[in-house]
């Protein structure tokens, strides 16, 4: 029972932390539910990775179980660039889903012409409101998000979770 209570408290921070699965904003990352769990395990080691096709060489994002270009399932994990430039961005004060603290900053990130991942909508954290500028350089950062309980052979197992975002390389004064 103690573990379940812990999970409820660590759930989506709505309705006193009790309302978890219906409004979960994070992926089910654990091996029991996700064949791409390696992505999240790599996050825990500070690596930003995805799957590359061994047959045709295509690097997909997000990662998958097959290559979306040639449908081969012969894939390997490769690292992606961890720095990008802000092309455009938006700051939300009101209306951000509960669990995303305002200001919620999302930016259109350019990883450069040599990157297999060209662009991404990335959340910018550790950045005060009004400080981000177009052209700023940002870097990959990993953080803990609420754990998720799953049932394994009638036992409750708590799956710790992580996610990633980006933060300014030069900290605003």
């Amino acid at each position: 029972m103690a573990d379940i209570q812990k999970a409820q408290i660590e759930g989506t921070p709505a309705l006193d932390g009790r309302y978890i699965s219906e409004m979960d904003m994070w992926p089910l990352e654990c091996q029991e539910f996700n064949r791409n769990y390696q992505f999240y395990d790599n996050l825990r080691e500070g690596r930003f990775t995805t799957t590359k096709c061994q047959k045709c060489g295509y690097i997909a994002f997000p990662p998958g179980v097959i290559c979306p270009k040639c449908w081969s399932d012969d894939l390997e994990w490769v690292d992606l660039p961890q720095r990008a430039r802000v092309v455009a961005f938006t700051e939300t004060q009101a209306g951000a889903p509960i669990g995303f603290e305002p200001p919620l900053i999302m930016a259109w990130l350019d990883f450069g012409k040599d990157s297999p991942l060209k662009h991404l909508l990335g959340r910018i954290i550790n950045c005060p409101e009004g400080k981000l500028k177009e052209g700023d350089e940002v870097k990959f950062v990993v953080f803990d998000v609420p754990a998720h309980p799953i049932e394994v052979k009638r036992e409750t197992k708590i799956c710790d979770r992580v996610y990633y975002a980006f933060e300014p390389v030069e900290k605003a004064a």
Partner: protein
Amino acid sequence: MAKRTNAVILGGGVSKFGVRQAHLLDMIQEAAKACSDDIPALKPTDIDGLIVCTTLAGRHSNALNTAPLVVHRLGLRPTSICIRLDTLCAGSNSGIIVAKGLVESGISDIVLVTGAEKVYLPQRWETNYTQLMVNDHDWDSAMGLGVPPPFFAMIARMHMKRYGTTKEQMAHVSVANYNYGSTNPNAHFYPRTLTIEEALSARLIADPFTLFDCCPLSDGASAVIITSEERAKDLSDRPLVYIRGTGQHATHSMSAGWPGETPAEWPHLKKAAEVAYKNARVSPKDIDVAQVHDCFTISQIIEMEELGFCQKGEGGDYVASGAINIDGERPINTDGGLISCGHPFGASGARQSLELCKQLQGRAINQVKDPKIALAHNLSGASAQHTVVIYGTEPVE
């Protein structure tokens, strides 16, 4: 299967859109009643095909296999098709594309396409979590992409920077659409009118958007009848409105796969439109009246460009020129669009197509002078999918 006939849109009906004190199925019954009033000769049991277009029915109304519920409530006895369809914001225009194929191949005779959403729940902000599920939940949504205004505001800032588009130009869209919607009793914001000054001085939602740059989420339902030209002549004396051509295109589910150079370029819409124009044997200059997906003012501006109504980057000038007004070269969103009507995702497409049906039959409230060709467009989610349907008073030869 060879094409056996030409599909037409016969007529339809729309419920009141807004924050409704009603269940999903109540609103579908209202739309069906309005559809029946529009086509008095049609009996429920004449309908042999049903396509129910909804995204939220499962989550918000506890109704996952929605089509049988609609069968029961409307007294239908479908024999050729009975399905639910989900393409989010494009729901019922996708349903019309499917219905055209079913009718023209001979599989179905008379198809009811209905779209409906119950957006608002007792805990209102729960809808914000649903919004995390209509995009790519595990990737973009986990970055905070939920409610649409921030994403489209970013697109607007990009468009302003690259093409010089201004807030005043965007206000021309909201003013035109509010003023069209002020004559549409089913519109969410009926009978509100709007001036440029009011639009520009309203409270900020997400820079550069003020309140009036954004469409509201709404509860509501719509229903249209798609049938063959032969059956249409049995059921109605009105001029026939043919579904001349359609196109639907998707390239990605999340930002990493975005097909444009920047978020201000929507090549996937351009492609969907090219396919629809080719199938309809028309070009952009032939479009007399259109209903486009104005979820935000910037959306309508970019759509003017990608649909070929003006050059890329000139959408702001185009909407500010008056071209979109009732006396302009190409009136747009003549029933109020999403901005005034509101946006019950699955219901919006059939609402648009019904307005175009009425325009081509000469019976719209804001009637355009003698239109021959009309176009409907939806985008879905964060511009993930684009859907185009072209109607005409004559079939494709």
